[in-house]
């Protein structure tokens, strides 16, 4: 055995042919384990590892949350009173800082009297997983406190429509403008310097202006999403368009394409998959402007729900709302990614990180 490496790979081929020929027999032959490194730049992982890591990425933060919530020796800075004892201002169910509880306790030990009882607990703003889990359901079934207020699902839907219109209107103008900027130097010089300037102005700064012009209802909210998305969108799309290989345009010119055909038959189809990817990322940004937009004028949508629930100290509902936003975002993006693969069967750039096994 002078060359262990060579013999190992030989064994492997034997195993491979044996197992394909006869599935039943493959159990008897010891499999040769090939070392598969985890950290190689730009090399994808096996399907199994992808799945495991994907699940772990959610499991890790959940685990931390579980540990902090259910292990009394981790954090738990407060004491929840179960028996007020002889402390005048203690009430059952009340939360109090650990130091305060201990000093009152010590006072009673020296002066005599009924001792208060309590258990370690986390602040109200960190509900335990099971509380949030119930809230995920009950937040939908709880009737609003006042007749005029919206149910949870109504607030949620309202938020989604605001995002939809803000993002759609922005894209209807921003995508064509971005493509033109990326294609024609003249358009780029006319538009981009101003857009570069404008994009540094924070969208929320236009809130008061938007309300003054557009009223207090949905229009100014849509406008904020629009302002927040549009300027970035033009620049991002222009840059993506510029990355199209010039040789493709030159090839089309030698094949007799007219100027207009170069735009519609080469540039646009050439950048479409990348534009689609850009839009998916930009849609995520639009959500970050939602919270600002919904605080403008009359507070509305999911933001209204969250602030309202925080005021009532129903933090489990706040968490439930946040988690649902996350789920909506994740699910839309996964759906869009899947649709993208269907729309652009020739697009390979999405596969780079995909499984190699």
């Amino acid at each position, binding site marked *: 055995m002078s060359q262990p490496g060579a013999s190992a790979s030989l064994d492997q081929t034997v195993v491979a042919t044996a197992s394909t020929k006869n599935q039943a027999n493959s159990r008897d032959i010891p499999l040769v384990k090939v070392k598969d490194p985890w950290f190689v730049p730009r090399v994808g992982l096996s399907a199994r590892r992808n799945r495991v890591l994907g699940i772990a990425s959610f499991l890790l933060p959940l685990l931390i949350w579980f540990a902090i919530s259910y292990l009394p020796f981790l954090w738990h800075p407060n004491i929840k009173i179960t028996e007020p004892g002889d402390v005048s201002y203690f009430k059952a169910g009340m939360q109090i800082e650990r130091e305060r509880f201990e000093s009152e306790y010590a006072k009673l030990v020296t002066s005599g009297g009924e001792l208060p009882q309590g258990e370690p607990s986390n602040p109200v703003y960190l509900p335990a997983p099971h509380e949030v889990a119930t809230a995920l359901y009950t937040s939908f079934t709880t009737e609003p406190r006042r007749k005029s207020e919206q149910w949870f699902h109504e607030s949620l839907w309202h938020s989604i429509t605001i995002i939809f219109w803000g993002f759609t209107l922005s894209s209807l103008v921003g995508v064509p403008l971005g493509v033109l900027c990326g294609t024609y130097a003249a358009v780029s010089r006319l538009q981009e310097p101003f857009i570069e300037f404008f994009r540094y102005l924070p969208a929320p700064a236009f809130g008061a202006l938007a309300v003054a012009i557009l009223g207090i209802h949905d229009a100014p909210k849509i406008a904020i999403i629009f302002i927040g998305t549009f300027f970035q969108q033009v620049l991002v799309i222009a840059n993506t368009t510029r990355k199209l290989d010039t040789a493709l345009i030159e*090839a089309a010119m030698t094949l007799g394409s007219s100027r207009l055909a170069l735009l519609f038959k080469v540039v646009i189809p050439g950048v479409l998959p990348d534009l689609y990817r850009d839009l998916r990322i930009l849609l995520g940004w639009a959500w970050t402007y939602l919270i600002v937009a919904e605080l403008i004028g009359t507070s509305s949508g999911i933001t209204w729900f969250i602030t309202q629930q925080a005021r009532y100290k129903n933090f489990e509902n706040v968490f439930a709302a946040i988690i649902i936003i996350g789920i909506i975002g994740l699910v839309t993006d996964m759906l869009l990614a899947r649709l993208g693969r269907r729309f652009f069967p020739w697009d390979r750039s999405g596969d780079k990180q995909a499984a190699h096994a």
Partner: protein
Amino acid sequence: MNVVPAYQQQTTDVRQRFDTLKQRDVTLQVQNLSKSFSINDGTVTALSNVSFEVHRREFMTVIGPSGCGKSTLIRILAGLEFASSGVVKLNGEQVSGPGPDRGMVFQTYTLFPWLTVKKNVMFGLRNLGVSDTLAQKEAMQWIDLVGLDRFANHYPHQLSGGMKQRVAIARALAAKPRILLMDEPFGALDAQTRAKMQSYLLEIWRNIDITIVFITHDLDEAIFLADRILVLKANPGEVQELIEVPVPRPRLASQMLETPFLSTRQHIGELIHPPVSEEDDLPGVIRMTPVGDDVEPQW
């Protein structure tokens, strides 16, 4: 006594071929072409006073050291770049800007990734206003010709490098150009695929009415394909010699070991790499003391 060098000795067959060739119309005429680029600290002269003519159905290869302006020349012929001075005429008409009468095959893969092989080949035909059904039919004929009928509905990313270049050739020819310009089209291919592609190209060229200008930096390729070879020299890019290849057609691999081929090869080799003597002052080359054989390894 003045002996004719071996590479200029033509058999009667070969001489007759060149005689008929030169009687054909001039397809491409290049007159006093110069091109300089302005860069941050002055100008670079890529081409200086280049003149030559290509006859109808001629296969001309262009060879020369790296940076001598081969790509610049072919891009000017294609109309993708403008000459600083001089004229390019196609069938007597001055060229200005790209057009479907001059097809081009690039060194990099330039198939449209969003189109199938068939749609790629149809691209030029559709630009010419050919109806969809007719364009499909014609495209399929070209795809058959390059032997890729089984791959008509594949996307470019599903093809090998050699297949991609075959589609690129079909795509360029389908647009019915008068002349096909090729800039190191097989440069990225391995030797075996390359040899196959050369035979393919000669076979296609033999069967249709097309004139070819083909750039390469590979001596064997230049000789194997060409009727005449345009040898350029660098700094500035000038025509050094226009060589009539004495190898008879049809070309076979076995000819590469025979005198006409070898003498041509040797001659061009000397043109491109002139012998360097110790005293020559080569700018940019660092002279080093050679390490003796008796030196102990130091690592």
